[in-house]
């Protein structure tokens, strides 16, 4: 039983005449919390979609839970939670209806957790019976996260999950992720532009540039190992922001 949860080898993808992924190799091991960083338009969302099999790749092999994407068993599909970038999905349903809908689609569903999260993250009865179209952007995003966490996934893939949340909301979300890691050892892959969040929660980072993962490794090591030579003066470590700018130049 291989310990790598996600394995991508030589993945290439062209989209509209542009090469988005170019011979990309990537491996994510069980239990890792890895942040995916890249400039706007680098293809982070596309990478995540290809990884989950939502987009066809032109070349390369992708395996999840040790099984090739095309032959993923239902049990393993049930262990994947995905929060897409667009959070205004199922606009015509109410949150209650939407959660009930997904409950019918997944074999395991943690009602208690859903109820706790809904109360803790500020959804009252009125909100639950309003169509999602009428909720604010932050509420929709929180709902999207709850939906992904509700079936106790072993692999969480999050595409800019907190872009619309205020600092309190982000803190609460990060706290929830940490609970995931502590209680269940979930593997988490997420992309975000908020580097401070990443620093708290992610142990590893991967930088996506020119269609490849150009740099990957434990965050602490990368920050300390990269030395800047500035006019002869050595600073002892970079901030994540500096590392990001350098790696994705």
């Amino acid at each position, binding site marked *: 039983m291989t310990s790598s949860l996600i394995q991508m080898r030589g993945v290439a993808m062209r989209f509209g005449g542009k090469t988005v992924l170019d011979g990309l190799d990537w491996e994510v091991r069980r239990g890792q919390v890895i942040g995916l960083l890249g400039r706007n338009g680098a293809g982070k969302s596309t990478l995540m979609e290809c990884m989950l099999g939502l987009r066809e790749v032109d070349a390369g092999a992708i395996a999840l839970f040790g099984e090739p994407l095309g032959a*993923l068993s239902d049990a393993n*599909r049930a262990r994947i939670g995905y929060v897409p970038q667009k959070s205004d999905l199922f606009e015509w349903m109410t949150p209650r209806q939407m959660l009930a809908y997904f409950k019918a689609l*997944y074999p395991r569903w943690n009602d208690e957790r859903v109820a706790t999260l809904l109360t803790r993250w500020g959804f009252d009865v009125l909100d639950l019976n309003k*169509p999602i179209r009428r909720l604010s952007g932050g509420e929709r995003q929180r709902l999207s996260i709850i939906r992904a966490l509700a079936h106790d996934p072993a692999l969480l893939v999050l595409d800019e999950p907190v872009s619309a949340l205020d600092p309190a909301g982000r803190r609460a979300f990060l706290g929830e992720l940490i609970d995931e890691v502590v209680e269940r050892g979930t593997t988490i892959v997420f992309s975000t532009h908020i580097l401070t969040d990443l620093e708290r929660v992610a142990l590893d980072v991967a930088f996506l540039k020119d269609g490849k993962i150009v740099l990957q490794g434990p965050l602490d090591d990368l920050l300390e190992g990269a030395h800047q030579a500035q006019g002869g003066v050595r600073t002892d470590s970079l901030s994540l922001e500096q590392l990001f700018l350098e790696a994705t130049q």
Partner: protein
Amino acid sequence: MSRSLAQYWLLWRAALGFTRAFSPRLLLLLAVFTTLVSTGIAAISASSAAWLSWALCTPAGFLLLAWSLGYLPGALKLNTPANAQLVPGLRRRLVELTLLVWLLGIGVLGAGMLVTTKAPGPGLWLAAFLTLGVAGMTSGIRIAWLIYLPLLAGVVLHQRLPRPLLLAVDGLLGSHLALALLAPLGALTTLAIFPQAGKRHWDMLAKQAGSSAFGARTVLDQEPGRFSWDGLLLRRALAQRRPGPLLMRALGRSLPAAAANGLAFAALGIGAVIYLAQRGLLPGMTSYFAQLSWVTISGVLLVFVFQAGMAPAWLARTTGEQALVRLAPAFPAGAAGFNELLARAQLRQSLTIWLMASSAALMLGLASGMEGSALWQQAGVCCMTLPTLALALRDHARSSVWPIFGMWAIAFALSYIGPMVGIAAYAAFGLPFWPVALITAFALTAVLVVKRLRLMRAAPIAFPAGRLN
């Protein structure tokens, strides 16, 4: 002068660009084609000046159609509070453009009518009030429905008035004074639908967001009431856990429920028309249609045909939802299994709507006093629309979405193949019309459905739709 024209053209194009379902090129083609056909027919069959009348009225009609359904929703989107307040001259230009195009349309329409009659009759007022009413409703003005009142009054009361009063009213409607009122009326409405920021503007925007503009979304995006069929059907689907209905719920609100809604309205409207016609209360052309009640009743089938043509566009709206649903273990992971499930569910849904529409048509027929062979003919007409069932089956992953008017045109064309073959067979070989038409329709349906099912089974997995084009 040319600068203003350039700005008008820019605004026109920008506004049209907002309504994706509306293809201006297609409409232009259709307008030219219809004008030529109607002018030709008028030139051949009617009196000397009639062709000019048609040549003027048809393009004017299409212009007003484009104005109210294609341009106006986009123009309303352009007139955001920020734009209206801060961009110099934008609102003014929009108001001017809207009014000018409307006046042009109404003017040419009136001129066309003047060719054959001494004074443009109530038809002009009908067009004016109808377009202004649509404009008001689309923009979300609360009292816009008032505009429809004179229309309704005119239609209902027109024949009931005593003759001298009727003549007087007709004369009044045709008089220059009344015509002169059209311009201020248009101006008032245009100014009202383009507010300049402020509370009224935001209220209108809220109302617009609640009920979308014309297109596949109108009936289907209404907020659910306390008791909604949609909610009930959803609960039932969740309780039964059959994958087919569950899959369809990812695409939007329940189409059969919405179709039932639409059918109810259509049936009421058509029923009212027939009722009034049979009592001799409708003026002019409308009564002609009412006599041929089976044609009118078949209008109910439009609900089915529109839904069938809309299927590709319907799927293209929910790509995000489709991605999530594709990951769910309740649905088959393999392409063939998934597509088969989707195809069957769509066919089942479409067939349900067809049954609902056909039953509504037959019931209307019964209610309006049809019997025997007329009812069978009505059923036959319903069967003619069956081939459109196949429109929902396609390679969703790869195919791009055609503009919705194009799809509706195709749906209509498919419905007419049966009758055309029937007519051809009758004209050429003297074969009876109905059996040939029916057999053609059934055969075409079977062939198309089987072929497209095979296509879907071999195609890549359908969700998310359109990702491979």
